[in-house]
């Protein structure tokens, strides 16, 4: 029964082409360890350096988005401050391309603004993304933003196809948010 259940989960992942997945509380420490494993695996497969870096760059921005903006968090300070944010990250192959999908809960109140930004980015071509990145690089960050606010642009820029995203409302307070990038 136990093996059957987990074999089922594994089969689901395999069928979606997922070679790497993590679900649970993420932290900067986990980002580092998973990132190293990801790079080692790609390097062993003799993926060229720039591609490894592109995949890694998208992975880092996706993970940091979860760590910063997940609506399910535990924070605390023992020896040093710790921030654990719930979410999931999956990396797989599809039609010869690497894809990264991240998922995490967000507050419903934040959905419209996030959706607007993503929809805008999705509609830009390569040159427009580059111009947008250059503009935002020179802007001071928005109020309440902990990152550089160019993480999503960076993801769109390194992706080889337009980004895909979706929201699923879970209750009156939160929605599940997914973002997929193909590299």
């Amino acid at each position: 029964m136990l093996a059957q259940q987990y074999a089922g989960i594994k089969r689901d992942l395999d069928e979606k082409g997922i070679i790497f997945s993590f679900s649970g509380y993420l932290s900067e420490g986990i980002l580092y360890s998973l990132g190293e494993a990801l790079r080692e695996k790609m390097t062993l497969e003799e993926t060229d350096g720039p591609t490894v870096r592109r995949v890694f760059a998208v992975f880092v921005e996706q993970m940091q988005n979860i760590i910063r903006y997940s609506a399910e968090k535990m924070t605390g300070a023992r020896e040093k401050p710790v921030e654990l944010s719930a979410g999931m990250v999956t990396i797989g192959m599809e039609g010869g391309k690497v894809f990264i999908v991240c998922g995490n809960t967000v507050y419903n109140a934040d959905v419209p603004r996030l959706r607007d930004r993503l929809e805008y980015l999705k509609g830009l071509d390569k040159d427009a993304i580059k111009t947008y990145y250059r503009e935002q690089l020179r802007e001071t960050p928005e109020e309440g933003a902990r990152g550089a606010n160019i993480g999503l642009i960076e993801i769109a820029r390194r992706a080889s196809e337009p980004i895909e995203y979706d929201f699923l409302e879970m209750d009156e307070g939160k929605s599940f948010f997914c973002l997929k990038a193909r590299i």
Partner: protein
Amino acid sequence: MESLKLPATGRTPEVDFDFAQGVLRLSGESYPDDVATFFGPIFAALRAFLAEAGGHPIRFDMELLYFNSSSAKALMNIFQMLETAAGNGRSISVTWCYEENDDSMQELGEDFAEDLRHVSFTLKQIPADGAP
């Protein structure tokens, strides 16, 4: 002014600012878990150095292989500081190194260079996985 030297870590670049010689270098990868904590002392040292009257011409070698978007913002701050100092008459040249075939890194260099008027900026291709 005393040099600023920080060894590379898994997530932060090597910092080698030889202020006496006017030769500054950042090399490696940058995706610190806390950008403000890592770049804060670098900004402070650079600001103090640039505020010194006269001084050597400055050479800044950027030999970064990868940096995340938060680090990009920090690098932009550094470029803006350099541009202001160069506008005030300091001679500053920046060399941006990127590995051959790494178009992303080359483009990022161009992103930073776009509005430099006083800093002399050079893109330099280096062999992949080789020391520059």
